[in-house]
């Protein structure tokens, strides 16, 4: 399985450097424009959530899965390597964002707690997004899943927008804190469940 993760990182080394550069430029621009560092954190984590999705597209283009399955690898380990890559890249994105948030809090006195909560929440949301998208990618392929991806990114935004238009009272602070505590558990459970769903989809796939 480590061989598969190594392959993805090697193959996407230039792409990863580009993502990193985009993030650095973003941080740089934002450092001139106020103290909205929670947004920077969110951006960093979301960028890193794209990596595993791109790696699926590369694999499909190269017809890699068909070839990899002639090697001493099971279908389960192919799926497992993708979920591991997802964890690693989102984790790396989270660490970078964390460094930015902590750094600015220490040097320019930004809001530390808010920043940390923001990075943590984004990490969980990124994992949940992967948890929804990866089974779709295994089931429908990257071409069709691209549309779904847009929908999945848009739905929460539209939902929140609709809620605010309806003029419902904003929930109390306790609700948000409860949500923050529940999120990591939801993310962990969702990711694990998603892995088993992907394995069962990929087991039946004809290559």
């Amino acid at each position: 399985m480590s061989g598969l993760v190594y392959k993805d990182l090697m193959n996407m080394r230039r792409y990863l450097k580009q993502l990193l550069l985009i993030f650095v430029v973003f941080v740089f621009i934002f450092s001139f424009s106020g103290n909205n560092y929670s947004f920077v954190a969110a951006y960093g984590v979301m960028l890193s959530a794209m990596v595993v999705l791109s790696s699926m597209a590369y694999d499909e283009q190269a017809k890699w899965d068909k070839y990899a399955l002639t090697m001493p690898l099971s279908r389960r380990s192919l799926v497992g390597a993708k979920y591991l890559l997802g964890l690693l890249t989102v984790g790396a994105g989270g660490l970078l964002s964390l460094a930015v948030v902590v750094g600015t809090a220490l040097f320019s006195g930004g809001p530390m707690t808010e920043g940390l909560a923001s990075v943590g929440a984004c990490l969980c949301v990124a994992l949940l997004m992967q948890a929804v998208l990866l089974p779709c990618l295994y089931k429908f392929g990257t071409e069709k899943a691209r549309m779904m991806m847009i929908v999945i990114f848009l739905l929460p935004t539209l939902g929140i927008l609709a809620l605010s238009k309806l003029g419902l009272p904003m929930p109390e602070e306790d609700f948000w804190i409860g949500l923050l505590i529940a999120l990591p558990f939801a993310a962990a459970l969702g990711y694990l469940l998603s892995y088993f769903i992907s394995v069962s989809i990929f087991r039946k796939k004809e290559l």
Partner: protein
Amino acid sequence: MKNAIEVRHLSKQYPGFALQDVSFAVPCGSIMGFVGENGAGKTTTIKAILGLIRPDSGESELLGRPMTDGEREIKSQIGVVFDETYFHDNLTLRGIDKMLGRIYKKQWDSGAFTSLCGRFDLPQGKEVKAFSRGMKMKLSIAAALAHHPRLLILDEATSGLDPIVRDEILDVFYDFIQDEDHSILFSSHITSDLEKVADYVTFIHKGKIVFSKNKDDLVYSYGVARCTAQQFERIGADEYLRRRRSAMGGEELLVADREEFSRRHPSVVLDSAGIDDIMLFYVKGEQG
């Protein structure tokens, strides 16, 4: 273990195409040529053997075991080359070496990989996307051999390559088969390659196996009889396998036993039949 590959009654239904009751065996220590026109079912059969698709019925064994009995162990002893390379565009030889080292673990022979790449003149440091088609195929072959498999499965591994590259590759297969524990299943529609190296030939046509025979028997006993319309009238329908009209207006017949036929019809012109001829008779000709 007698057979490196054994396929029994494999069937798989697709819209517009079906594998029907495919059975054959690759004896240990031999090269089996697997021939048939494009779309005859060669790749589908190989995919079913490798567990990439699920057959509707039938079973297959690799190295004496069904794939369900120790998938990893079986697959660590086979090398597979498809008709194109499936390595990612941005990888280099070094990256591929490291990756496969992690996948095959102790079995991976990095030195053997490097020396095969050297023998094939593959460029160090370049990425796969800059490789020519011939280089890509040689890379796939080097990758398939460097973990010292006992069985090679080649699906159109030489098609689309020039004769010089094909010859180089055939040489490598020849070296591989010197070990009598080694076997090769070699699917191709380039019959001249098979005539050079194969011990046995299995012929598939429209998803069905037409025959699976020793190549020497085929080449020495099969023949093409060329006769005029009058001569044809004296030949019984059970004396030939397939017939087809020749360009000159006469009849051409595929006969299974050349000597026997020439004893009965000494006046008919009789040539030996290559694998090409035999394929043509089955694909284009009519039943005897």
